[in-house]
């Protein structure tokens, strides 16, 4: 029994449509791109394509847990509601907090925000979107008076110049990148400029890469604004008619030259000039920006520095022309729509209009002030001001800056609730109550992508175990807290209708977010919902691709605002103690904290181990070897990573953001990141932390490939990754075990009753140990230990793990780590003394026309020692 269901990918903000063929009985799905979805038109990236490998039940949180004990929903929900009520009663509403996620569906998000802000009466509802695009939100609101993304993906195909700013689009928004690649192929005149300190995969299609100094983006765009003015490239009519604050902005910049800009940004002046010229001389310019802009202590200013240039040229919200923030998460935008962040209210309503929300919800206690944002919120937990926190579908112990402090905060917190679909994460480990949420393949609701497009996520399977939708869990708690009628939803569409109604409530065109057309949507229509870009209202019943082309903004004056930006360097500059700049970011094949992508073997092949990219000269300076291990340390924490030499900026290192304690002993980059935030957006400066680096030289290094999952806990350094039919462990240790043979027999086997076969190789003097465990003819596990990182490629051995049966040649080559080469078949050994095979002898008899065994002996030595094979050699002449 199969059925095909259209849904949306749960990873990045591109929001690709997926066509899933569902084999309900086997709990399996076949994933294809949805050709009808306007975000991707059938394309998918590696992560989306591998979704079928992530829906297994292994590792899922399937039952509520209370203080480490499995229980039923009733006990768990009662405990959470009672505990929150007790804390609120004793300490007030601000002593509790929710921390949500851009992975939540809009309906989930809506009820969470409604409960916290409207009924508990605190602003302490923030989300991991704070780490992702809050600077864009703040920048949009300053410029446009609303959090509005002006442009859309279709502009990729119309633009004549695309500027990728602080975005490794190729890896982080791969399908958008594919569309841009296709656009460039179709229109070779399309210019691509990449602005990024690193030379990333996105530079592959770049006509110009500007590897600017970390955090210097505002200088570059202020310089552009100045250049536009100097070169008479302004759209004065547009500025006059539709904007305000231009003069102040321009004057604040003070006519910087491209040479000055280049100096500030550590760029070639010619490159800067080239970029500026292209901007001036191209009609359709599209700026795409992401975390390199947002994750900064001046992120909001950087956003506005970019938008200023588009306002100054009138290149905004037009076909092929404008600014588009590439959001990180599948529903970061949906979260923004429902007020998922502490300084927002639902439906893009400002705190100044809180009365509207309060009246709509009939919630007189709706909070009138913003709550604590992510970093502040966990600081407050650390300080004991927040006594109870509910973390929904996210992993702050890994992802927040100064993550070790976050861990301590949760360890010290009175009451920690985590709702998640995965049982073991670094954050679930610290929870008092675990609530099993439905995963992507089970949930129903809506998400909004980077271009304001609302799409449906649809359930593919029945819920796993006792897992429930997030909206259900939240409303159950709300009801138990005394808000039964206000949270009496029966299904997601009930919530969606209310959400849509609120967006139109007393709106009258004052707020950008308006989907009031859906206020009465039927269950059937909701089921058949087609991807649509908001607003969707009486004026735009089919939605709206672009905003602001008419020059009408949501500021009180209706005009867009130039923001005078005074560029600021990142807060913490390198010092003698911490001389390098740490940059962080995503990898192509992993998502966030790997809770789901690491389940897919094929996604773990690309980069199986946390690494640090460093310039070869820096590596030499700090005594690091390629592929050796390095210890990275900041004022806030440390990690260990594998050294990769890359020709990037001197003095700058990069580590991937994904690894957690579930997959690495020392791979959490969040521990190093400085807890510095943008003063306006409160988004952390995750792209710039001063660090130092030194070689980590363990006594031994090695790896294990094992068909069964192992518990490797007593090793100083370990990395775990799942392969196709095996698990891979990269290991290192500061002390040697007494006896490797004993060690592997203890750690690679569950029981001695299995009667495994062992192959061992030991070169003690060189610190080399290798062993394989076989069951019948199948490779169960293999371990390679060396004194350093000189170890074989894992690929061939990995492939052997997947084989049902090893050949003799493979078995004998196994512990060399490389496939057998050139082993000619010599046949059965006849002369054991000189190891001469029957086929070798027959060949020489034939080739040289030999007639006696003595001649054979002269040719091959066969039979000339003990002579016992002479009868057999004689027999070969017959």
């Amino acid at each position: 029994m199969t059925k095909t269901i259209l849904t949306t990918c749960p990873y990045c903000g591109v929001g690709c449509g997926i066509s899933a063929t569902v084999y309900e009985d086997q709990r399996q799905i076949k994933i294809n791109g949805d050709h009808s979805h306007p975000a991707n038109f059938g394309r998918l990236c590696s992560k989306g394509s591998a979704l079928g490998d992530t829906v297994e039940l292994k590792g899922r949180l399937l039952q509520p847990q209370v203080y480490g004990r499995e229980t039923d929903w009733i006990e768990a929900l009662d405990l959470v509601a009672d505990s929150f009520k007790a804390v609120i009663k004793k300490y007030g509403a601000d002593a509790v907090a929710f921390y949500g996620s851009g992975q939540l569906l809009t309906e989930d998000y809506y009820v969470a925000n409604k409960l916290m802000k409207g009924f508990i009466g605190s602003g302490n509802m923030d989300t991991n979107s704070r780490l992702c695009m809050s600077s864009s939100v703040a920048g949009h609101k300053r410029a446009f008076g609303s959090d509005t993304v002006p442009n859309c993906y279709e502009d990729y195909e119309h633009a004549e110049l695309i500027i990728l700013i602080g975005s490794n689009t190729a890896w982080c928004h791969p399908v958008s990148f594919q569309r841009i690649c296709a656009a460039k192929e179709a229109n070779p005149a399309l210019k691509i400029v990449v602005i990024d300190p690193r030379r990333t995969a996105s530079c592959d299609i770049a006509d110009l890469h500007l590897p600017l100094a970390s955090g210097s983006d505002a200088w570059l765009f202020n310089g552009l604004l100045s250049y536009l003015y100097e070169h008479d490239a302004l759209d004065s009519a547009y500025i006059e008619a539709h904007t305000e604050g231009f003069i102040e902005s321009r004057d604040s910049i003070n006519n910087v030259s491209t040479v000055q800009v280049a100096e500030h940004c550590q760029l070639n002046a010619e490159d800067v000039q080239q970029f500026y010229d292209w901007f001036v001389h191209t009609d359709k310019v599209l700026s795409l920006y992401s975390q390199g802009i947002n994750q900064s202590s001046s992120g909001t200013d950087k956003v506005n520095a970019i938008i200023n240039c588009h306002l100054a040229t009138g290149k905004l919200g037009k076909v092929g022309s404008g600014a588009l923030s590439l959001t990180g998460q599948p529903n970061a935008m949906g979260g923004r729509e429902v007020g998922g962040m502490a300084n927002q209210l639902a439906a893009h309503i400002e705190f100044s209009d809180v009365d509207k929300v309060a009246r709509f919800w009939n919630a007189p206690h709706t909070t009138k002030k913003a709550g604590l944002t992510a970093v502040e919120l966990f600081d407050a937990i650390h300080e004991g001001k927040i006594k109870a926190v509910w973390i929904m579908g996210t992993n702050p112990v890994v992802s927040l800056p100064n993550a070790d402090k976050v861990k301590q905060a949760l360890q010290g917190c009175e009451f920690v609730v985590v709702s998640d679909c995965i049982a073991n994460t670094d954050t679930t480990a610290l929870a008092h109550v675990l609530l099993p949420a439905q995963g992507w393949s089970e949930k129903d609701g809506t998400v909004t992508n980077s271009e304001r497009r609302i799409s449906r996520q649809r359930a593919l399977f029945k819920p796993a175990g006792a897992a429930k939708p997030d909206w259900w869990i939240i409303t159950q708690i709300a009801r138990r807290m005394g808000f039964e009628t206000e949270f009496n939803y029966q299904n997601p569409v009930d919530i969606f209708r209310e959400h849509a109604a609120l967006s139109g409530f007393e709106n009258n065109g004052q707020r950008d977010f308006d989907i009031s057309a859906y206020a009465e949507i039927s269950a059937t229509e909701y089921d058949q919902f087609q991807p649509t870009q908001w607003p969707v209202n009486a004026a735009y019943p089919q939605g709206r691709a672009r905003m602001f082309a008419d020059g009408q903004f949501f500021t009180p004056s209706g005009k867009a605002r130039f923001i005078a930006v005074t560029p600021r360097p990142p807060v913490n500059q390198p010092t003698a103690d911490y001389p390098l700049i740490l940059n962080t970011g995503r990898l192509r094949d992993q998502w966030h904290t790997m809770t789901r992508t690491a389940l897919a073997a094929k996604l773990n092949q690309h980069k199986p181990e946390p690494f640090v990219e460093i310039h070869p000269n820096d590596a030499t300076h700090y005594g690091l070897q390629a592929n050796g291990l390095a210890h990275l340390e900041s004022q806030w924490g440390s990690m260990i990573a594998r050294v990769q030499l890359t020709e990037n900026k001197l003095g700058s290192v990069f580590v991937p953001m994904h690894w957690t304690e579930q997959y690495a002993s020392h791979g959490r980059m969040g521990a190093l990141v400085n807890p510095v935030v943008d003063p306006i957006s409160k988004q952390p400066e995750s792209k710039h932390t001063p660090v130092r680096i030194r070689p980590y030289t363990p006594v031994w290094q090695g790896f294990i490939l094992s068909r069964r999952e192992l518990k490797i806990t007593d090793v100083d350094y370990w990395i775990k990754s799942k392969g196709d039919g095996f698990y891979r462990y990269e290991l290192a240790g500061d002390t040697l075990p007494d006896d490797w043979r004993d060690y592997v027999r203890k750690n690679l086997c569950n029981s001695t009753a299995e009667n495994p076969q062992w192959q061992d190789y030991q070169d003690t003097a060189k610190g080399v140990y290798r062993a394989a465990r076989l069951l019948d003819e199948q490779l169960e596990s293999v371990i390679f230990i060396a004194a350093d990182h000189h170890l074989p490629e894992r690929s061939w051995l990995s492939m052997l793990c997947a084989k049902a049966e090893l050949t003799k040649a493979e078995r004998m080559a196994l512990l060399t780590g490389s496939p057998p080469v050139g082993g000619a078949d010599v046949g059965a050994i006849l002369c054991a003394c000189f190891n001469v095979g029957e086929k070798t002898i027959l060949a020489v008899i034939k080739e040289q026309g030999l007639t006696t065994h003595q001649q054979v002996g002269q040719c091959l030595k066969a039979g000339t020692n003990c002579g016992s094979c002479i009868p057999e050699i004689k027999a070969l002449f017959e």
Partner: protein
Amino acid sequence: MHNKKQKLVVIGNGMAGMRTIEELLSAAPEQYDITVFGAEPYGNYNRIMLSAVLAGDKTIEDIVINNRQWYIDNHITLHAGESKAVISIERGLQKVIAKDGTTADYDRLLIATGSKAVVPDVTGCDLDGVISFRDIVDVNKMLAYSRSHKKAVVLGGGLLGLEAANGLVLRGMDVTVIHNHDVLLNRQMDKPAGLLLQTELEKKGIKFKMAAKLKCLLGDANKHITTVSFEDGSELDCDLFIMAIGVRPNIILAKRAGLYCERGIVVNDTLQSYDPSIYAVGECIQHRGDTFGLVAPLFEQAKVCANHLSAHGVAEYITLPTATKLKVTGIHLFSIGDIQGDKQCESLCFSDSALGIYKKLVLKDDKLVGAVLYGDTADGVWYQQLLEQETNISVLRDGLIFGKIYSSNTSNWVI
């Protein structure tokens, strides 16, 4: 012209002596009138294949190297049989005398009297049913016992003892090997290899009493062995007792002739004894302190000796490490060089217990100095070459133990 030929007399019709003659005939076929004395009534046979005869893998015919016709064809006078055993060498007269009075004059004498089995220093070794395992007579006795008796005990877990035990088991006897060490072939094998070997031989039905201290052999009224008694008080029933605890050079004749002997007949690098007209090869000699028990050095000695007898006079004998093998069907073992190693040595070990493979290589100063291979001996010859040629193996080290084919495998490691 015939009269001008010098006279060469060979005492001993065994493998070393006859290999020397073969080498000599090929180097200088016309130089000597050759006379050979042999105490056994056969032509020349491959003594090391006696185990195969005992095991039934070969017949005596199969192991004959040179039959009587060969001696005729090569104009060699052969005096073979017990009565033709040489009892005296008259060095002054340059003449040898056999038991039956046959004499032969020599210009050059080659002594190749071989070795005798070591007899343990306990009472009862003179009982009937107590034999060594040296020649066709011994094999025939063992075969006869195997048809009429049940219990055999083999003293000595060395190569010969194990081959004897294997043969007797195959002939249907209940065989126990008693060994004074806890590791079989302890001179060639280390403990892991020895244990693998023991397990495999046990599977073939051989029983073992390891680290055993023999007390005495007890017999019945007919002076036939009945019981083997041990220091620990235990006893074994026994119908046939094989002594296989090594050999010592057979030098009775040489000593009686006043040739300088220590443990063996002392020879120089040309295989010449202290009497310039007398050469000696094989298990009866002592060269630079070494005596011999394996076939490979004997063949080398034969080559060098023939070189000097033929008056080429350029070859020098050097004892190379000798590789050891066990001739038991289905068992592959190889051992060469210093397998224990000293403090400066490093070792590489490989084992695959299910395949019954164990390998150990001993290295010193980046050179191979010893090797034990069990179960997979395919690379024995390669290791022997590396060892003999003192090849620096540092670049091969990572893949060395995996054999010649795989040794280059690790060179393509990328990190």
